[in-house]
């Protein structure tokens, strides 16, 4: 249910984003979705890839610092208020969201997938399921062809 997300440390300079992406491309690793967080000094590139173990190996061999965290992909309705409903479930359970970003393409028509980073992913999983929200199956997401 949980996905393995790779986070990469990057200096905030032109060209820094390309090298790790090119390394993954060369190794034939599919990037399913990506999100970049940055400050004036540095950035963190977060990636969901098809084969995270191999991607980690490729990146580390290229000299990149990689951190692996578990994130939860939650399915929300692709309509006004869809995301708010999911957030209500999380908030009501008293769970903090560290950060979130959209999955590039939703798992099925009319749905979107949002990737959440929680302090406590297991408790979050239980809370959203209790509200009848669907946590996207990892197989389902990773099975999709990337964009």
């Amino acid at each position, binding site marked *: 249910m949980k996905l393995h*997300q790779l*986070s990469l*440390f*990057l*200096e905030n300079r032109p060209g*820094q984003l390309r090298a790790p992406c090119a390394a993954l491309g060369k190794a034939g690793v599919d990037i399913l979705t990506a999100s970049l*967080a*940055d*400050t004036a*000094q*540095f950035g*963190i590139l*977060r990636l969901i890839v098809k084969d995270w173990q191999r991607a980690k190996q490729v990146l*580390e*061999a290229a*000299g*990149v*610092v*990689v*951190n692996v*965290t578990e994130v939860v992909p939650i399915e929300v309705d692709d309509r006004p208020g869809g995301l708010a409903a999911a957030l209500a479930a999380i908030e009501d359970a008293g769970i903090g969201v*560290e*950060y979130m970003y959209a999955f590039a393409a939703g798992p099925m028509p009319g749905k979107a997938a949002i990737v959440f*980073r929680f302090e406590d992913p297991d408790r979050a999983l239980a809370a959203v399921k209790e509200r009848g929200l669907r946590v996207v199956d990892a197989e389902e997401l990773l099975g999709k062809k990337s964009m």
Partner: protein
Amino acid sequence: MSSWNDPPGGFHPASVPDYLPRGRLAEIQLQRLQAVVTRAHGRVEIFRRRMEERGLTPAHVRGLEDLARLPFTVKADLRDTYPFGLFASPMEDIVRLHASSGTTGKPIVVAYTKADLDVWTEVMVRTFAACGLHRGDVIQNAYGYGLFTGGLGAHYGAEALGATVIPISGGNTERQLMVMQDFGVTALCCTPSYFLHLLERAREMKIDFSRLRAGVFGAEPWSEAMRQRIQAESGIKAYDIYGLSEIIGPGVGIECAHQTGLHLFEDHFYPEIVDPTSGEVLPEGAEGELVLTTLSKQAMPMIRYRTRDVTALFAEPCACGRTMRRMRRIGRRADDMFIIRGVNVFPSQVETALLQVEGTLPHYQIVLTREKGLDRMEVKVEVTREVFSDKIRALESLHRKLEDALEHVLGLRVQVTLVEPRSLARSEGKAKRLTDLRNV
């Protein structure tokens, strides 16, 4: 009288002087001091002139305490008399020359007679023996062979010890690692920063060096923190070796298995600690500049040579049984110090701050710049797997903690920049910790 790590069957016979009773040692020291002062006075013009200016003759050296009356020798003396002006032997008695890489202008040249080389080999045997090495060990010598004293000095010592020597010299990391693995290397000689570089590559190349048990690391200052990191990450025992070409090369001092300071081979190299500014001799235990006198050197005697290395001496007996006095490991050189906005800073202080925050010592570099007449100090710190987080907040907090810790240690606000791993220059030799772009 052997230490717990000495080989079965006792220590190498060359190590006998390590355990001389202090009284007997003092007799030998005085006798040798009088001889070397007489030799330098008779044969080295600059030294004789300085003695005369003070109204001194070799006869004034009646006790070891009289050494403090003699003039200092400084590095500039070697440059000013380049190439052979400090030699006390005729060229036909000199069997080897070494030279340092002068960063500016001419190098400094040092010379050895056959007897000098024998002393050098002897102190290097005693050095390796103190590290628990013996016949049967396979020693990979990655110090540079050539004009630098490190390579050949360690080489002949290791051979005389009876170990198997691999004279691989410096550089070519992949080959170093292949040899280390394939030849069953048990001990390695190189700079500590180069060993860290080797470790990093070994991990990536999945090299097995489980037979390696000792590293004889020197030729640059390194901290206790760095030692702890090396020992924890590699599982080997990391020994600090001390030496300098002007005195003999490697083999002036070495740690024993207890790693509580470096024993100085003071039957050949007499140590004093002086105030770096006034030149006054400081009492035992006080921190100051190490001054060395070569007691047995023929070709190029050094009387009261100012090493610029900052340390302290202590005479308490060591648990290993050696009677040679110990000096605190050298964390800094009087020359390494830089002044920024009126504050004296040593790179070792920066290490202390980084270590406090991260728990291990990351690769770092200090960059000094001057903008609009104002000095700026920046510390670039490589982000390691251990401290990297996927959360911006955590990295910003690390960044702030580093700046705070540096301010606390230095009394100065400096800019910290987190940089990608392996983006700072890795030396194959000495670590380049400081880049001064101030044009002062």
